[in-house]
């Protein structure tokens, strides 16, 4: 554990959050988030439903605007840059969505090649080669002519990872990589994330609530609760933590019975977001 922290302390900071706040209307979802992500590390953002982890991820990739605070990616504060500059940043990050978000009207190959065709002036033959390479990396060699609807849930996620990898991103984001998959397929996705980390020293940020998967892939973890960061640390530090909220989450202890109606009401309203996503 010590050597992990020592190593990463020396390496360059890829992404850095300073007092990040996000609000929908008058309701604040994230109440001032601070942490750094270093090059080559895998950071897992853990938390229960409605803790704001998905909102955090959406803000990091520029899908939501922060109400205040700073997000530094590669020396630029994406909370305060123009849409054109944001697009340049976006070409250097990859995002794998929960359901894959593959375009249903295109084949798997066209999906993966789309960022290349849009943003590069590569020859069609080069794109073909890169596309095969990306599909091979995620274990989908030979599937380029399939339609997304012909793929299983796990294969869709792999294809989505291949698309996220298309532009050789420096940071890769995962939203709930194992959601909706059976344990064996989910383990396969975990393996894939570990391979990407090992082979490319890629900086990876994963949002999940799956503990087993989190401990397997993470170098460091961030535990969130009700829009705040409760704890940050390496997997070993987290396991040793005596903080009640951390213990409750890691030991899977149920929330104490809600005694008063008012508390319950508050819990309900805190967990609801306008877009319906929790």
């Amino acid at each position, binding site marked *: 554990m010590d050597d992990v922290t020592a190593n990463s302390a020396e390496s360059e900071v890829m992404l850095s959050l300073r007092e990040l706040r996000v609000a929908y209307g008058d309701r604040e979802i994230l109440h001032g988030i601070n942490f750094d992500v270093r090059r080559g590390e895998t950071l897992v953002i853990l938390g229960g439903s409605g803790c704001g982890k998905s909102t955090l991820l*959406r803000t990091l*990739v*520029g*899908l939501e605007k922060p109400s205040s605070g700073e997000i530094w990616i590669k020396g630029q504060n994406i909370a305060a840059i123009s849409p054109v500059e*944001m*697009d*340049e940043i*976006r*070409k250097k*990050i990859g*995002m794998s*969505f*929960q*359901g894959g*978000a*593959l*375009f*249903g009207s295109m084949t798997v190959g066209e999906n993966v090649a*789309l*960022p290349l065709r*849009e*943003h590069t002036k590569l020859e069609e033959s080069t794109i073909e080669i890169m596309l095969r390479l990306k599909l091979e990396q995620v274990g989908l060699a030979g599937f380029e002519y399939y339609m997304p609807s012909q793929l299983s849930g796990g294969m869709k996620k792999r294809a989505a990872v291949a*698309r996220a990898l298309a*532009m050789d991103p420096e940071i890769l984001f995962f939203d709930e990589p194992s959601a909706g998959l059976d344990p064996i397929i989910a383990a396969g996705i975990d393996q894939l994330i570990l391979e990407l980390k090992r082979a490319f020293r890629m900086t990876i940020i994963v949002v999940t609530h799956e503990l087993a998967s989190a401990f397997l892939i993470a170098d460091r973890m961030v535990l969130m609760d009700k829009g705040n960061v409760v704890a940050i640390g390496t997997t070993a530090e987290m396991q040793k933590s005596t903080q009640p909220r951390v213990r409750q989450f890691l030991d899977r202890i149920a929330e104490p019975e809600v005694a008063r109606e008012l508390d319950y009401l508050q819990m309900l309203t805190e967990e609801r977001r306008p*877009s*319906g*996503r929790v």
Partner: protein
Amino acid sequence: MALVAQIGESVTNGLAYLGSLATLGVRASYYTFVGPFRGKPLRLQRAISQAMDVGVRALPILSLITFFIGLILALQGAYELRKFGAIDLVATAVAVSMTRELGPLITAIVVIGRSGSAFAAEIGTMKVTEEIDALETMAISPVHFLVTPKFLAMIIMLPCLTIWANTMGILGGSLFGVLQADFTLNRYIRASVDSLFMRDITTGLIKSVMFGITITAVGCFEGLATGAGAEQVGRSTTRAVVMSIFLVVVVDLLFTGLFFFVSGE
């Protein structure tokens, strides 16, 4: 007081809605007419496949509907014209009402039903499955990628469909003319063509382009404004159809008024 506040709020919402539509329309026009010269090429292949959907595949149903409309117009016109012994004017009545008004309007309504709703459903589903978000994280503008091909297809295909609809309407009228009003087909067509001025046709076509812009903007906007969940897609689609029909009629009124007061036509 509450009523005034409510009216005020509705007006503000309505204006905000029109503003959003205009923004989307302007962005789509930018990508269609300016973008290609600024290194953002048009997606011609997607536009052509959209044009097939919007235009070519609408031909059978549009032909049938406008043929019947032409026939109905002839029947209704003849009812009145017969009283004056002016049944010969039935060709003129059908030709003028088709090209100036009903051709563009009926075409727009058929296209709203077929394509306006489909735009909202397609984009709405993509919104729900995070495909729109995926486009944005890949630095691809959803407006450029999804809306522009539809926009281009619409502003080209709607006038074409309108010309076709006018022709079918006149042919529908000719069925009555030949069977009931002692016309030969040849003479009916000639009478129709003679009764039309160029401006009858052009005003109809100008309106149809405006209808195309309206339908695309509403359909795509409603799609992009879809909330989370499958039932929201249904809601967006319904709203797209209702709003498009309403706004097409409003645009029709505005342009008909404009043509009337500006050129006295």
